[in-house]
């Protein structure tokens, strides 16, 4: 939910507008960058409650919702709260996300007209598309904790009788045999 909807949660007066959708798009990007180690791979080293997104999923009361609204508003001025939690693969997107969040707090952000806001966000995304450089020669080995490769390494240390007859490079085979 957008910070506005959350902040007005107790009053039950907030109207969900296209502006809220535009803001939500940024949070979806933040969610992905924090919780995914890479394409199609959820990070293996941390649960969501161990990241900066814990307040996003632990709303149990209207007061929590309002607090989360305040927290999300604060991201505009202190984006590092979430960008510091980005996994290595997505760290190159930090400047883009920082700009997106800052735009929400910009004096030009219209509270009533979503069109200029949409254009602002779109231009920042386009700029990111044109300028962000991906990590060269990326592989999961560059984020061993995020991809859970340490666990795989431990599993490979099973006694040889446990793995004989199976492909030594496939830890999944070992797991299958023990089921």
């Amino acid at each position, binding site marked *: 939910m957008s910070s506005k909807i959350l902040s007005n949660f107790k009053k*039950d*007066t*907030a*109207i*969900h*507008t*296209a502006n*809220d*959708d*535009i803001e*939500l*798009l940024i949070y*979806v990007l933040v969610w992905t960058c924090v919780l995914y180690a890479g394409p199609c791979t959820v990070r293996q080293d941390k649960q969501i409650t161990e990241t900066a997104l814990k307040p996003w999923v632990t709303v149990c009361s209207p007061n929590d919702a309002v607090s989360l609204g305040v927290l999300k508003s604060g991201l505009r001025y202190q984006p590092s709260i979430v960008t510091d939690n980005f996994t290595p693969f997505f760290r190159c997107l930090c400047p883009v996300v920082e*700009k997106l969040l*800052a*735009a929400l707090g*910009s*004096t*030009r952000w219209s509270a009533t007209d*979503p*069109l*200029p806001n*949409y254009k*602002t966000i*779109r*231009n*920042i*995304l*386009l*700029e990111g*598309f*044109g300028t962000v450089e991906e990590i060269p020669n990326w592989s999961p080995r560059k984020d061993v904790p995020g991809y859970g490769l340490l666990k795989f390494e431990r599993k490979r240390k099973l006694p040889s009788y446990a793995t004989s007859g199976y492909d030594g490079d496939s830890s999944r085979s070992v797991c299958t045999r023990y089921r």
Partner: protein
Amino acid sequence: MTMKHPPPDNDGAYTHSDVPSDGTATYSNMGDEIREQQLARWDQERRNMIQDGDVRGGLLIDFDYATLLDQSLPVVPGDRTVSSSPSFAYVAHHLSGYNTIHVIQDSF
């Protein structure tokens, strides 16, 4: 050179309404034009990549609202979108078949 308009925010973007009608902000106008040209070039690159199948374009938000909800409902507080921007309204009215999806992708 005279600069009558304020500096840009940290998103670096001026809108045309920021430019004085007498056109005195030459430096910034030039910066604007260069940025617009860059954005247009990147947008074209993006479109080309989508067309070539290198990346996928799509609509992430408001899809459900546009396709599943009755848009004629009055303003409802809470979890429904109202006053959608034109691009979303376009989806609601023209969501039928590949061509529309293609247009949506192009509209980013």
